[in-house]
């Protein structure tokens, strides 16, 4: 396969062409709004495509670490975090194909959800530590989304 230029570079050029050549020729406000949506979607795809699997793997590891801290601190009432961790470890992605890593990432998401639920009622460092993982996830989401204001209004 041809690996260079990267996918994000190709999308960057497509977006630039849409902005410089197509957009000025569009006079219909409805079509202009569609073009704005297309640009926004391409921007998000461009931000994801070169890093998606690595980002998911990084976050899975981060979630496992914090979940282990929750369990070791005795904050896992009902063993809900432990159970979700077991499921995660029992269903590792067998490859780097996106869909399989996404399935593992989904299980890690459940672990994080349960860790948040377990620690939310308890004020203190552990709660903030778990929430910091959620904040990290958010920073990635915002990076992928980019600036976002509704087009066509």
């Amino acid at each position, binding site marked *: 396969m041809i690996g260079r230029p990267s996918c994000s570079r190709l999308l960057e050029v497509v977006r630039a062409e849409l902005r410089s050549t197509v957009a000025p020729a569009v006079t219909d406000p409805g079509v202009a709004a569609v073009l704005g949506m297309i640009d926004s979607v391409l921007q998000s795809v461009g931000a994801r495509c070169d890093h998606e699997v690595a980002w998911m793997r990084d976050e899975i590891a981060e979630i496992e670490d914090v979940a282990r801290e929750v369990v070791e601190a005795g904050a896992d009432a009902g063993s809900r975090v432990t159970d979700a961790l077991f499921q995660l470890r029992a269903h590792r992605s067998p490859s780097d194909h996106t869909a399989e890593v996404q399935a593992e*990432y989904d299980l890690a998401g459940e672990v994080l959800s349960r860790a948040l639920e377990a620690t939310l009622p308890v004020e203190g460092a552990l709660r903030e530590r778990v929430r910091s993982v959620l904040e990290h996830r958010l920073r990635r989401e915002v990076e992928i989304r980019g600036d976002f204001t509704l087009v066509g209004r």
Partner: protein
Amino acid sequence: MLDPEKMPTRLVAFLEREHPGATVSVDSYEQILGGYSRLTARFRTEIDGREQWMVARGDPPPEMSTCDTDRGMEWLTMRALHDAGAPLPRPLYFEPEGTQLGSVAMVMAMVEGESLFRLAGRSDDADLDALADRMVDLAVVLHGADVSRLNHLEVPADWGGYIDGCIQGWRELEGTHPEADPFIRYLASWLDENRPPPAPLGLVHGDFQTTNVLVTADGSLVALDWELTHIGDPREDLGWCKWNAVIQPPGLIDRDEAGFCRRYAELSRLGDDVVNPQTVAYFSVLSAIGACQALLPTVASFARGINSSLVTAYVIGFVSTFHEQFLEVTKAIEAAEAQKGVSA
């Protein structure tokens, strides 16, 4: 409604069935941009020589849907509230089968006016303050509507049970989404742990924001888009108004949030322990349930390849904005509570 060329002919046939024996013509059919959820168009009609401008509002086909709501419920809501004197366009006809107009649709009288969102965008500070007051006044009027006419809407038994239902709604929404969403799970638990003082339940517009308000030539405000209307906590509308200012500046509530809340608290007689910036902030995230319940199933359909709407692909960015708000708002309320504790 996806085929504007055919719509005048379809509308003539539809209106002739509504007005047997009348002479009907339709022209100047034009789609209205700005709304993401429904297909909307204006047109001119003459029925036995009487000219009237109307608006058709219909469902897109399932594969193009971005928002899963019930047009029949919206029709009943608009009918009942219009009869009760609420400021909204006069609902005229309903097409429940979708066979005559090409989609399930309603037709209403067109209201001449400018979107409050656009008016706010070209207003100076003094005018924006006045518009914020008008927005409060509109909210008070809508929330004071007689809900006994709205028999088709579910009436919660009490405030606590209603909030329980909203929080459970968040959990169920996450449970049916095709991937785990820790932000929603966090939010549901947080909302449960941090309940504000209760308020009397009443009419909630459900999508109360400046893009859904028209300002007429005489300065009256008219509320549009009643697809998310329900019986609930009126602070949901104030919270949703605040939330929307984040993605569609300029906002009206965030200019002087304390003043906005104070005016509402006085006019509604709910008091400032019930309506204040912190309780409104709580409802800014709780009230997002309506939009998320409408939006996330279409995102799920998109992921499965059933829905192919560009708008759905585009508004996925919206989901991250929800997540952003969930964290920002909950942390801000916690900080304000901590500050109150220090002051005390």
